[in-house]
């Protein structure tokens, strides 16, 4: 009997447990999943909590409910991987051996990486919304906030879900307008990137929406510290942005166990160097990496983990059968972008092709529209919650190809890539 070990039971790890449990011979392979938490969160829903669109409680379900019977679920913290010994050590002293390892340990916000952020102001006038606690704390603060300068800022260019802070800005505009206090709120969006997004067509479209909604974009601003006393963001080149209420996308980092195992990359962000097409770890042939744990040049988002899961399932089977790893991930990402007032837009792109206008998933018919604000897109985003719990996590097929398709897209004139600062 051989052992397949999956570290992490988030979106990516849970999908892999389901897919591989179906695909592998139960007499030949034992599958074990390790995670330190019992609870699974529907992370796309965090965005809706601060604006009281969703109750927080609906976002949480037991992880066990989504791990198939027949897969062993271990609730424990991993101390380190010893890839040379094919062993994973847990903090409680246990050791788990493996023949094949899948690292799906995700990424988390680290406010302590920005001086002044994780201090006096934290969860008083400065918040994140990518954690359950942060989204709930921000909801409570927004409920009584009387207005002033709302500043949304990105600490790094690599973070979980690059679209969410834009959505936050749009939803904030909509929220304050509905409360009749939009004229008492200045919204600024402070980013180390050169614009609202990075790819040219999407940036042009999203910048237009920002301007239309009266949201100021402050580009090329790389935050060095938060001056707690003066309530000011200070950049490395000593520019300042004052705020009354700060919504941070802190530096995101992969799991500490990646650093402890000396498996991270040179950015020191604890992401595992991974082959961008096969999803095999660069340095270890029986280790594969998926989702936010990778250092791949695509978005850290659930849709990416979903498309990767299809490819990784094929490649794990190839690896087990001694065949070449010929399933190739193309960097496919697909994101709804809530724009407020009951509308949303949608983007679909990969390593080589930027988000383009068009229809999705069916050419001409949609029903969703790319790079356009529609009610159908918003309904798609809301419907996704059901799809996530019932189809996606349990590894059932969805009517969306893991490879990006050019059908229904309007390529127009090619333009150069935009870039970070």
């Amino acid at each position, binding site marked *: 009997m051989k052992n397949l070990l999956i570290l992490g039971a988030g979106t990516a790890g849970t999908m892999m447990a389901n897919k591989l449990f179906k695909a592998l011979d139960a007499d030949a392979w034992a599958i074990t999943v390790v995670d330190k938490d019992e609870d699974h969160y529907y992370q796309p829903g965090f965005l809706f909590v601060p604006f009281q669109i969703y109750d927080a409680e609906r976002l949480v379900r037991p992880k066990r409910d989504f791990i198939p019977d027949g897969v062993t679920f271990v609730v424990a913290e991993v101390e380190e991987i010893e890839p040379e010994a094919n062993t994973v050590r847990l903090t409680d002293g246990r050791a788990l051996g493996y023949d094949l390892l899948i690292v799906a340990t995700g990424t988390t916000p680290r406010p302590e990486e920005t001086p002044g952020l994780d201090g006096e102001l934290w969860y008083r006038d400065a918040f994140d919304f990518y954690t359950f606690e942060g989204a709930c704390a921000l909801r409570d603060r927004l409920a009584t906030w009387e207005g002033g300068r709302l500043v949304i800022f990105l600490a790094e260019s690599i973070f979980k879900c690059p679209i969410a802070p834009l959505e936050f800005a749009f939803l904030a505009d909509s929220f304050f307008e509905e409360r009749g206090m939009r004229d008492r709120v200045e919204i600024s969006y402070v980013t180390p990137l050169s614009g609202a997004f990075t790819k040219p067509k999407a940036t042009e479209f999203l910048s237009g929406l920002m301007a239309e909604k009266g949201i100021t974009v402050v580009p090329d601003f790389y935050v060095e510290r938060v001056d707690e006393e003066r309530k000011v963001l200070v950049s490395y080149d000593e520019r300042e942005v004052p705020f009354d209420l700060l919504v941070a996308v802190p530096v995101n980092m992969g799991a500490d166990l990646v650093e402890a195992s000396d498996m991270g990359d*040179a950015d020191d962000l604890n992401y595992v160097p991974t082959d961008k097409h096969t999803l095999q770890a660069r340095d270890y042939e029986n280790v594969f990496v998926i989702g936010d744990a990778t250092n791949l040049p695509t*978005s850290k988002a659930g849709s990416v983990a979903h498309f990767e899961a299809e490819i990784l399932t094929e490649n794990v089977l190839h690896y087990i059968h001694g065949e070449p790893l010929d399933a190739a991930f193309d960097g496919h990402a697909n994101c709804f972008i809530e724009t407020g007032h009951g509308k949303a837009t949608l983007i679909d792109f990969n390593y080589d092709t930027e988000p383009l206008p068009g229809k999705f998933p069916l050419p001409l018919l949609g029903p969703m529209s790319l790079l356009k604000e529609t009610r159908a897109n918003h309904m798609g985003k809301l419907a996704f919650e059901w799809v996530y719990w019932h189809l996606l996590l349990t590894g059932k097929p969805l009517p969306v190809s893991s490879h990006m398709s050019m059908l229904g897209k309007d390529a127009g004139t090619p333009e150069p890539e935009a*870039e970070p600062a």
Partner: protein
Amino acid sequence: MQQTIGITTVDVNDEGYLTDPGQWTPELAHQIAQAQGFELTDKHFEVLHYLRDRYAEGTPLTIRRIGKSGLVTIKEFYDLFPGGPLKVSSKIAGIPKPASCV
């Protein structure tokens, strides 16, 4: 397209980034920097060579990574190449503008 910088003609894209890093010379770097309004010191060149080496290895470049290089702190990097330091330094180093992943 081609652009003449000083007495050298090189291939550049429409934003002025060299399309062939092999055409780069230190002299060219001085001239691109002068056009941007500053003079290069030995410290600048240490950073430029670091960027070129990482680019040649295929390593993605970020401001954070340069801050971790041991050559300069992020603050010194901003002082050396004011504005968007990674964009400015990449242009002077004769490598493509760093693409972002999102």
